[in-house]
């Protein structure tokens, strides 16, 4: 199988996020970017499928800070090729990035067509759409999202989509589809830094210029704010022991002790 895994960078939400001077976007200066967690699962699922069925995995990403590290890591994990789409512009919205990618992919030498495109079904910075669905539509391919298992067999794909309450829904489609991955069947593999360094030395990243900017207007953001606490949490302070004593009191009050 020839599989494409699409990766994108998103703000690391574990870090403190600050609002920029315009009051409408994040302050980019101290922003730490990480690869979208769902995309990381998509890459893992691609590598698992390659291990089962043979074939190749190509990791593709739009240019972004630290993206080279992410692509080299993908190579170190077992991807056969890494492609970086350059000249894409900065701070693209989800919809603009997907549109640009859909235009750029056919222009990458020796890449399309593929049998399967895997990417995360969502990202924490989605404001104007879902990458995977927009990309599927633009490429004219079938789409299933929120998927946590992908099986390929005789030209068909069988995917399990998550429904509420732990129920899974089984869907079938032809190969040559876009699948929005929620989770891989195994946790994304760890790769030691030495292996990433080796990938940097041995393999290169193919750079392909984007085919002009995406013709997609961004949404009009009026303001960005930190959400106000709705529950007005009472913050407890003290040493772990003092905190534990207070939790003990709360549990006793509630009749749990």
């Amino acid at each position, binding site marked *: 199988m020839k599989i494409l895994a699409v990766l994108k960078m998103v*703000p690391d*939400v*574990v870090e*403190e*996020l600050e609002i920029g001077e315009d009051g409408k976007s994040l302050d980019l200066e101290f922003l730490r970017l990480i690869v979208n*967690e769902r995309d990381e699962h998509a890459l893992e699922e691609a590598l698992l499928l390659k291990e089962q069925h043979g074939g190749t995995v190509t990791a593709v990403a739009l240019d972004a800070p630290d993206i080279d590290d992410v692509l080299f890591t993908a190579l170190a994990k077992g991807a056969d090729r890494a492609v970086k789409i350059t000249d894409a512009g900065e701070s693209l919205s989800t*919809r603009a990035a997907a549109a640009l990618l859909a235009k750029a992919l056919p222009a990458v030498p020796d890449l399309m067509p593929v049998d399967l495109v895997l990417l995360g*079904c969502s990202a*924490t*910075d*989605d*404001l*104007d*759409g*879902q990458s995977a*669905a*927009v990309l*599927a*539509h633009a490429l004219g391919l*079938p*789409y*299933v*999202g929120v998927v946590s298992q992908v099986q390929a067999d005789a030209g068909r794909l069988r995917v*399990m*989509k*998550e*429904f*509420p309450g*732990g*129920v*899974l829904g*089984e*869907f079938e*489609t032809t190969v040559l589809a876009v699948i*929005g991955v929620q*989770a891989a069947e*195994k*946790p994304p593999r760890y790769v030691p830094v030495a292996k990433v360094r080796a990938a940097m030395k041995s393999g290169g990243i193919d750079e392909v210029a984007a085919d002009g900017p995406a013709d997609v207007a961004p*949404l009009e953001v009026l*303001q*960005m704010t930190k*959400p106000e*606490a*709705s*529950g007005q*949490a*009472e*913050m407890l*302070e003290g040493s*772990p022991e003092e*905190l*534990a*004593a207070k*939790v*003990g009191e*709360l*549990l006793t009050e*509630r*009749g*749990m002790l």
Partner: protein
Amino acid sequence: MPGNVWVVAEHWRGQVSEITYELLALGRELADGLGVRLDAVLLGHQAKDLAQTLAADTVLYGDDPALAEPTAEAHSKALAALVSERQPAAVLLPLSNVTGDVAGLLPAELDAPLVTSCRDVRVTDGRLEAVCLLYGGKMDATVAAGAGAALLGVLPGVRSADKGRADAAPQIEDVAVSVPAERRVQFGKYVEPEAGDVDITQQEVLIAVGRGIANEDNVELAQELATALGGAVCGSRPVIDQGWLSMSRQVGKSGAIVKPKVYIAAGISGAPEHVEGMKASDLIIAINTDADAPIFNVAHYGIVDDCLDVLPAVLDAVAARKG
């Protein structure tokens, strides 16, 4: 004259989903604010009876065998044709695992943006404004809906479902739907979750662990506390994805909706996908190193500290109180 406000009615396995009523309650406010009517769009097969409970002025009902199951391609193409024909002012789409793909594909069909992760929508000066939850719940972006039909993906819990349930049967209008002749994606079957050793929806006390629990061995710490309190351990997505807890222990969008008497969230940031599964708990105590973690927005008591330091101390305190 602006078009009506539409709510896409989600139904699944013969039942209207709770989120449909929540969106109808919101849709009524928006329709009143804009001075237009509220329509529910119910697409399915032999599902007309489900229209009875929907608190809309009119239910637009479209029937086709291809719409029997939540296959996103058929639903989004049928919806796109209806939106193009009737030009509603806004389309509210449930952001659940059932309808989320439709919310992804419909805007692409219409070459329009989806205003996604809306936790609120309001009418300001005759215009729709949405408040969208970004970055795992750490930021709100207030977005102005543009010209044309505003496509709004709305998170669960936006309004109380009660106001979205009809007291009297609504007017039902049968509409013609166009679905693609070729079904590129075919629904097979539903697979029930494997029964876990405990049913976390039935527990009075839940100790929930997230990424902050750091590794699989530390889950034992939460388990000990749960045992001491006669409860159970559950977790957020990252812990399930790592395989540290089974899927039957997952709280949130793809997992269980829980309402225990006590919910201790240890090392859980509080992403919207998790919060929708636990926010109705009677008492929520959150422990997280990040003072900005959105879990503190829903918690009743918050502790900014490492759960790996606090949990052992709580375990000791519980043991001492039990004598």
